[in-house]
């Protein structure tokens, strides 16, 4: 009986280790700097935001119906929080070969059409998406600046109602940013949502 519990414990620990390592950032992790091409052709780095209180990084794309459903909510997040020190930075990691609607050209036209006043970055090599452990679109990571570091404070969905923004009664990203702005603990640090899987190149 004892052997069984030891085996079960070891199996559990191995499974836990496997799920913790190599799958991107967790809350509390420091994010490595990245530099990606924006839709205006200029390069944008996370370190460009050294005067911000934090950054709302959202992995997004043009084609996913969830991205479409959340598009206006993402634009509204930037309008509401950029001036408070939490600008939005969106990143598209989708492989354009598998999903042609997510090519750089299509990103440029989407940003123009929706008058984006925040970066929409092209993660051509998918390295940034992999580093973050982004899985869905849209997938939000709220980062808090600590000196020159950016530390993950929230990972997950924007809110709890994809269908209808006005029916969302848990606004995870807003709640996280509001808490960080008033030096309070983030109420919900991690959530899951149904969404489109990111189109990885080797998948």
């Amino acid at each position, binding site marked *: 009986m004892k052997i069984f519990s030891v085996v079960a414990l070891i199996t559990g620990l191995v499974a836990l280790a496997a799920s913790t390592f190599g799958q991107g950032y967790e809350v509390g992790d420091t994010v490595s700097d990245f530099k990606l091409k924006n839709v205006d052709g200029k390069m944008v780095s996370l370190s460009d935001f050294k005067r911000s209180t934090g950054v709302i990084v959202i992995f997004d794309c043009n084609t996913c119906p969830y991205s479409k459903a959340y598009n206006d909510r993402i634009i509204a997040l930037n309008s509401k929080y950029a001036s408070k020190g939490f600008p939005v930075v969106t990143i598209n990691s989708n492989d354009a070969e598998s999903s042609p609607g997510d090519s750089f050209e299509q990103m440029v036209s989407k940003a123009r059409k929706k008058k984006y006043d925040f970066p929409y970055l092209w993660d051509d090599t998918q390295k940034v998406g992999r580093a973050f452990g982004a*899985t869905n679109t849209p997938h939000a990571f709220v980062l808090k600046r600590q000196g020159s570091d950016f530390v993950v404070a929230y990972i997950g969905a924007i809110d709890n*109602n994809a269908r209808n923004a006005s029916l969302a009664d848990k606004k995870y990203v807003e709640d996280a940013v509001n808490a960080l702005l008033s030096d309070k603990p983030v109420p919900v640090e991690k*959530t899951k*949502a*149904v969404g489109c899987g990111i189109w990885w190149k080797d998948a």
Partner: protein
Amino acid sequence: MRRLIFPGLFFLLSTCLAQEAKTVRLADLQKLMNEKSEKIQVINFWATWCGPCVKELPVFEKLRAEGRPDVKVTLVSLDLDLDPNPAKVYRFISKKNIQAQVLLLDEPDANSWISKIDKEWSGALPATILINHKTGKRRFVGRALEEGELETYLREIQ
């Protein structure tokens, strides 16, 4: 008269044959997943809007068509998460002539239930779970299946 009877019969027959996709809640789905079944449950989560899901549906249809007595295939559509109207799913099923059982999951607040399906699942589609109650083995795949992969997993959890 005959001209009327034939299309009439055809209509009746096709209505009877067209499967009804049942709308279910999380509890119904959990019941299916925990059922003491002799069969290996193959449960695929998909949606009509999801390209990679639609592409892999024939894999599950093929498995169902093999008629293995030890396997039960269920396709769980998550379309209702975004669009409350199931009409699109009904049309899709009949257009693609899907014979495997389709369930429509109607459950709000995705964050509260995704991990209850499987801790490993991010919520991204497609996703597939294989459950063998007889051996207690289980396999979760949080992406589209590659050629031949389903057969490998079915063998693994025997």
